[in-house]
């Protein structure tokens, strides 16, 4: 995956995307950086895209590929819902994503995480990495930033969390990935889906915790110089 240095390189979502099940539903999370080579084309993108009222997808990899795949699937799910007469299940949505991803594996470069809630299976997360493998998981991580999160989740993941615990975990994780992955950045967006519906949340950079070697943001050096507290390293 060589990074093209030019401003005309294809739009890629370096990205950190996460999907987590909890006791009652799912929490999806993502960063907001879309890059064209080394340039940040969009610093506030929304990578968590709606497929139906109850199913959303986190997109990573090529922005164009992930958008077109989710557009096709949204279209098919819409038709399917009309014919079925009731909301589509998460499994069906995930399988449609898989179908397109698998059958076009040579042309597409997108890793997706499908998450949602339906009345049959409750909250479910499906990972569909490059190649079109479909894999149901209690939680899924994806995108370039996910490399930095395998250890974190190995340690912190617990079955049967509450909604608050799950969302906290997701925000912490995306924030940690943003700290280390150059291709991830911006704000943290989360989408919580359960029997009651869908809730979108937004965590701007200044609401996120500070990690190693990061400093408290200031308005100006002058504020520090004029402050009575001693400086610390």
């Amino acid at each position, binding site marked *: 995956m060589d990074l093209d240095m030019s401003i005309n390189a294809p739009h890629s979502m370096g990205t950190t995307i996460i999907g987590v099940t909890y006791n009652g539903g799912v929490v999806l999370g993502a960063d907001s950086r879309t890059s064209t080579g080394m340039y940040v084309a969009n610093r506030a993108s929304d990578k968590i895209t709606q497929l139906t009222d109850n199913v959303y997808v986190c997109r990573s990899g090529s922005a164009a590929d992930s958008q077109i795949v989710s557009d096709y699937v949204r279209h098919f799910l819409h038709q399917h819902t009309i014919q079925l007469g009731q909301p589509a299940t998460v499994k069906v949505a995930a399988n449609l994503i898989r179908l397109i991803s698998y059958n076009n594996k040579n042309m597409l470069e997108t890793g997706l995480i499908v998450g949602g809630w339906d009345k049959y299976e409750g909250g479910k997360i499906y990972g569909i990495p490059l190649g079109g*493998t479909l894999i149901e998981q209690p939680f899924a991580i994806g995108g370039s930033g996910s490399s930095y999160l395998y250890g974190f989740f190995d340690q912190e993941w617990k079955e049967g969390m509450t909604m608050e615990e799950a969302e906290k975990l997701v925000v912490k994780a995306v924030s940690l990935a943003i700290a280390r992955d150059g291709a991830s950045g911006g704000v943290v967006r989360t989408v919580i889906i359960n029997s009651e519906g869908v809730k979108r949340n937004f965590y701007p950079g200044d609401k996120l915790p500070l990690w190693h070697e990061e400093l408290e943001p200031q308005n100006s050096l002058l504020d520090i110089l004029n402050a009575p507290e001693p400086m610390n390293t």
Partner: protein
Amino acid sequence: MASKQPDALLGPESDSQRTQYPYVTGTSVVAIKYKDGILMASDMGGSYGSTLRYKSVERIKPIGKHSLLGASGEISDFQEILRYLDELILYDNMWDDGNSLGPKEVHNYLTRIMYNRRNKFNPLWNSLVLGGVKNGQKYLGTVSMIGVNFEDNHVASGFGNHLARPILRQEWHENLSFEDGVRLLEKCMLVLLYRDRSAINKFQIAKITDEGVTIHQPYSLKTNWEFSAFQNPSQGAVGTW
């Protein structure tokens, strides 16, 4: 990238020529004939390049009443093969004639699929191990991504060919008991765990006999690191590895 714009929904037949790259891969599968049927073992890893990304992938699945299929290689292609076989078994059942496809037939079907895809330069990137019993007749065969197929008393895919088969050549014999068979497979899986970078310590052993299929629950093996030679290997030769 292709210069023409194929319809994204038509599937494989819309592209002219291609050989793919595997993305999410499974490593070795090892299988042996034993007294009552076939024993097959694999780990539960799905690697993404050098990352051990998925650790609960079932790479051995029952096919119909008489067969077990184990796969290494690209998992998405394995999932597609399972769909083909699902259709095959369904149509077989729909005849409702009391007959059912045995392991030999399933193996032949898989061979045709793999070889014909290879001829179109569009392989299913898998090495398959197909074992089963029908009417007391044990069968164990393998098919590679280029269509090479054969049957034997013990088969393996991937690293298993290099590390497990030699052990099996020495220690396999006719009419192994279930316990001896499991212990023999575990010996192979342990070697693979030590020496295959893409192996993980989480296994499934599957058994098929005339009575039916059992895929046992996932489990891990104890590893041994307590050799005195492992304690201070660079003492006598500083800088050695």
